[in-house]
């Protein structure tokens, strides 16, 4: 049933991912395949399990059941000699996570480090890259997200949009296989949303495999190769954005999109009005 808008090799496969908190099932046996270079957007009401799905993929949250593989290598479990699996410990998990970039809703930058070191610290602490080289590579990524002039500032001195772009640079500096965006613009003031979406769109356009949870429907429609609608912890519908947004098959998808219809119109209107800004 997996509809893929992209052919090509699968880099992320999720099988039967289930998450229960106490007696509440948040995710029910999710299957998800993401191909290299694909941009998958996950939409759904709050509480539908979108964020939990992302957090389970890189095991910030341990799934109750199910398997996650990145380029055919397991995430969150370790193969034993006899071919069976055991759960990965924190150290092993730390290594496995390095192929996955994660962008948080609330940025979660390290407030005691400059923008440059926020990006570089993973290289010099985790990868053992010499500090000077790590900073050089971090600087490249910051320029890529148009923050070349703000490298030496602390997060507290940056706007929300700038902070989120630093966080994106931090997530991509390793050259991850896939980047997971957890509502990257939900904590931003409306006028700062665009600069962040522009960067995500640019990276996706350059072939960065991305899984994006968002409430920005017009952005989703434009950037996605595939849209997934999640409801009550299950994938209800997925397909090309034109199909999911234009002609949703499932009544639940239709009902959900109804809520957005009016705001969607507004967004598109304001999109048309505002001219693309060049931010430094």
């Amino acid at each position, binding site marked *: 049933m997996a509809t893929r808008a992209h052919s090509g090799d699968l880099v992320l496969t999720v099988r039967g991912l289930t998450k229960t908190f106490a007696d509440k099932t948040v995710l029910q046996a999710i299957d998800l395949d993401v191909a290299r270079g694909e941009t998958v957007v996950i939409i759904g009401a709050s509480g539908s399990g979108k964020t939990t799905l992302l957090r389970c993929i*890189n095991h*910030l949250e341990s799934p109750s059941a199910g398997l996650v593989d990145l380029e055919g290598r397991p995430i969150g479990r370790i193969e034993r000699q006899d071919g069976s699996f055991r759960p990965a410990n*924190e*150290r092993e*998990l*730390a*290594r496995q*996570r*390095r192929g*996955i*970039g*994660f962008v*948080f809703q*609330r940025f*979660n*930058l*390290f*407030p*005691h480090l400059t923008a440059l070191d926020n990006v570089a*610290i*993973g290289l010099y*602490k*985790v*990868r053992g890259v010499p500090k000077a080289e790590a900073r050089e590579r971090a600087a490249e990524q910051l320029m890529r997200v148009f923050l070349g002039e703000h490298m030496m500032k602390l997060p*507290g001195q940056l706007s929300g949009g700038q902070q989120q772009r630093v*966080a994106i640079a*931090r*997530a991509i500096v*390793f050259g991850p296989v896939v980047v997971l965006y957890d509502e990257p613009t939900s904590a931003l003031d409306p006028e700062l949303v665009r600069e962040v979406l522009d960067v995500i769109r640019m990276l996706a356009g350059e072939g960065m495999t991305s899984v994006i949870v968002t409430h920005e429907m017009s952005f989703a429609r434009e950037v996605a190769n595939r849209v997934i609608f999640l409801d009550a912890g299950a994938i209800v519908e997925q397909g090309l954005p034109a199909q999911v947004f234009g002609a949703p098959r499932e009544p639940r998808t239709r009902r959900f999109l109804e809520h957005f219809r009016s705001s969607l119109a507004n967004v598109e209107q304001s999109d048309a009005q505002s001219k693309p800004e060049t931010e430094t």
Partner: protein
Amino acid sequence: MTIDWAVVETAIPLLAKGTLVTLQVSLVAGVLASILGFVLGLCALSNMRLIRGVVLGYVDFVRGTPLLIQIFLVFFALPVIGIRLSEIWAGIAALAFNTAGYIAETVRGCVGSVERGQTEAAKSIGMTHPQILVSILLPQAMRPIIPPLTNELISMMKSSSLLSVISVYELTRAGQAIISVHFVPFEIYLLLALYYYVLIKTLSWLSRRLERRMPVF
């Protein structure tokens, strides 16, 4: 009640010598206690149960027994197992071990209460638990640690008067020596209180200055 001013005059320089010892003891014990306390505090946040258990046991012992008994243990009991320390080093060791337990609790509390998103972000870039504790959480916890840390150090400096019982010639002991010769307890104990008060006020003033200079996150 008349105050024997002549004794007070002779006492002031004599007490200065004791003050110096109190300062030395407090400084050395304070540095050792802080180092040990930070290490233990971070260990208490380890994800290895055994390490956590050892630290919790240590803290529990320190908090559950009187300092005076701990001083006696170091001074009288350790020689039995072959560790013989001079009075002053036994005193320093006892104070340091005791205070380290309290500092460990402070460090554990402050480092552990840094916002959870910080740990998650650090995990997401592949940092290990010890790296997260040292490079991400501890630096952010430094400012909130300063006031309770100062309290522990002040408390330790006051407790250093207990070392008089194992004949460390610190401030209290110096005062008692004068009392035993001149029998002027009122004047001398009042003077001692004044000396300690000045020492402690100075320490808390220094701490407030340090706290103000630390960045807020």
